[in-house]
């Protein structure tokens, strides 16, 4: 496993606030799903979005990526009000955001290499520049050997890793993970979480992790990736210039039920929150 070169470091945002939801509402035929959601994330911070199935975690991520528009309220990301942008403007904005879909959402008619290279080819990057960058991010997710394979030939965990590689290739300052460990065995889940840690601690990207697995959130809060030793270590990062802050936000019935630090979450006396801890 090689250490990623500095060339792949995502472009960081100058704005201290990476993402802000202000009284965001969205609903469908069955009624409102998110009801007045308000929160913000600072650049470099990690937000763990917890909640039961159907509480609107994925919707919140899609709103943050500009894939959906709120019925009311505003979403600001990377210093831009994305809820007021046209679809054409949003296409440009989304190039600055990495999105890891729950099932990977890889293009099944393209090879792994083509999937990862997709964004660069869309941007018109010269072919001789694409190949080394694809190899670099595939090496980062430890799947360099799968470049010629089709997604259907990979396991579920490998597909998620390719999805992370695809999100990473555009060097985004913010990455949104939609239940990246859902349906995976504990060992593969650990591999995915390690990748998210590496991405956070090596590239210093702002991360939003939607999940219903509390252990994923605590893994991000209690561990860090040491780039020099190339291993995951317990405790906070040694990089004092860019400390990785992890916060928890629990959604219930489309509203924020809890917002706080991992310690607050761990020491909670709330019966509902304690159900996540079991």
């Amino acid at each position, binding site marked *: 496993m090689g250490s990623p070169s500095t060339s792949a470091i995502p472009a960081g945002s100058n704005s201290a606030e990476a993402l802000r939801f202000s009284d965001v509402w969205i*609903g*469908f*035929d069955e*009624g*409102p799903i998110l009801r007045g959601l308000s929160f913000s994330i600072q650049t470099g911070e990690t937000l763990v979005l917890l909640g039961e199935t159907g509480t609107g975690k994925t919707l919140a991520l*899609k709103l943050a*990526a500009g*894939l*959906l*528009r*709120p*019925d009311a309220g505003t979403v600001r990301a990377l210093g831009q009000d994305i809820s007021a942008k*046209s*679809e*054409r403007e949003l*296409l*440009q904005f*989304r*190039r600055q*955001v990495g*999105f890891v*879909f*729950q*099932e990977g*959402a*890889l*293009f*099944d008619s393209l090879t792994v290499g083509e999937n990862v290279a*997709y*964004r660069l080819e*869309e941007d018109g990057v010269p072919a001789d520049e694409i190949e080394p960058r694809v190899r670099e991010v595939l090496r980062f997710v430890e799947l360099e050997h799968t470049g010629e394979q089709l997604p259907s030939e990979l396991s579920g965990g490998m597909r998620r890793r390719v999805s992370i590689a*695809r999100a990473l290739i*555009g060097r985004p300052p913010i990455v949104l993970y939609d239940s990246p460990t859902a349906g995976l065995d504990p060992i593969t889940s650990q591999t995915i979480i390690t990748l998210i840690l590496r991405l956070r601690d090596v590239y210093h990207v702002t991360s939003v992790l939607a999940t219903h697995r509390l252990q994923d959130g605590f893994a991000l809060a209690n561990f860090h990736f040491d780039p020099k030793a190339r291993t995951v270590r317990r405790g906070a990062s040694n990089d004092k210039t860019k400390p990785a802050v992890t916060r928890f936000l629990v959604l219930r019935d489309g509203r924020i039920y809890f917002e706080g630090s991992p310690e607050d979450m761990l020491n909670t006396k709330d019966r509902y929150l304690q159900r996540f801890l079991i």
Partner: protein
Amino acid sequence: MPETPLQVTHRQSDDAGTPTVVEVLTDAAKHSVLQVQDYAKLSYHSVLDLFTPPRYGQDTIQQMDDIGVGSLPIVLLSGFFIGAVMVLQTGAQFQRFGQVSLTGDIVSLALVRELGPSITGLLVAGRCSSGIASELGSMLVTEQVDAMRAMGTDPGRKLVSPRVLASLVVVPLLTTISVFIGLVGGMVASVFSLRLSATTFWQRAIAILVFSDLMQGFTKSVVFAFILSTVGCYQGLNVRGGTQGVGRATTQAVVVSSVLIIVADTFLTRLALFLADKL
């Protein structure tokens, strides 16, 4: 709130009680109007996007291969036998009046004006409209379309416009081939069934045609190509309900595009006859 061309328009209902019959009918009418509106928007953008970058030439060529080359065998086979059966049906009537030589005229006119475009349109709709709907529908339910949007690609430009352009190019070509093969089938049937010489058949078949006949057939094939491709794309990008929804969309694509082709054929024929009288 403005919506994207491919984003579903969501309605929010506050009524919790049982809806009345009037409300159900009103909702159904609104839903139908909404579908027509969404289809019109998709069709409009599919054409508009052809004139502005980015364009996806490679995807268009790939679709031409899939729609054009892939449909060639069924178009050739059906074209040949439709030409032959037309001769068998009409020749028997002409024999009663001793006007067998007119067979070439009637087969040629019917194939160029009507049967060539409509049969080709229906066959390609059955094969490709369903294929487009199932492909795009599968991409939608597996979030590949969202992934595309998340990476800054407009699915309308990437998925819809290349399919529409490819259809607009290859369906008229397929229609031309179908007409020619139909005439070959008619000639074979004439020679062996009616003892009509091949030369007479071809001479009559070509001489009867005028420019407006060719234009009528060409216009129809272009319109049918547009219908089958846009309906397939619309159904595919509006799938609801997972894989079961993909199946429904596939069926709907064939049904809707076939019906629209037949309806459009009637109006285009009337228009062509009107213009032929005027010009």
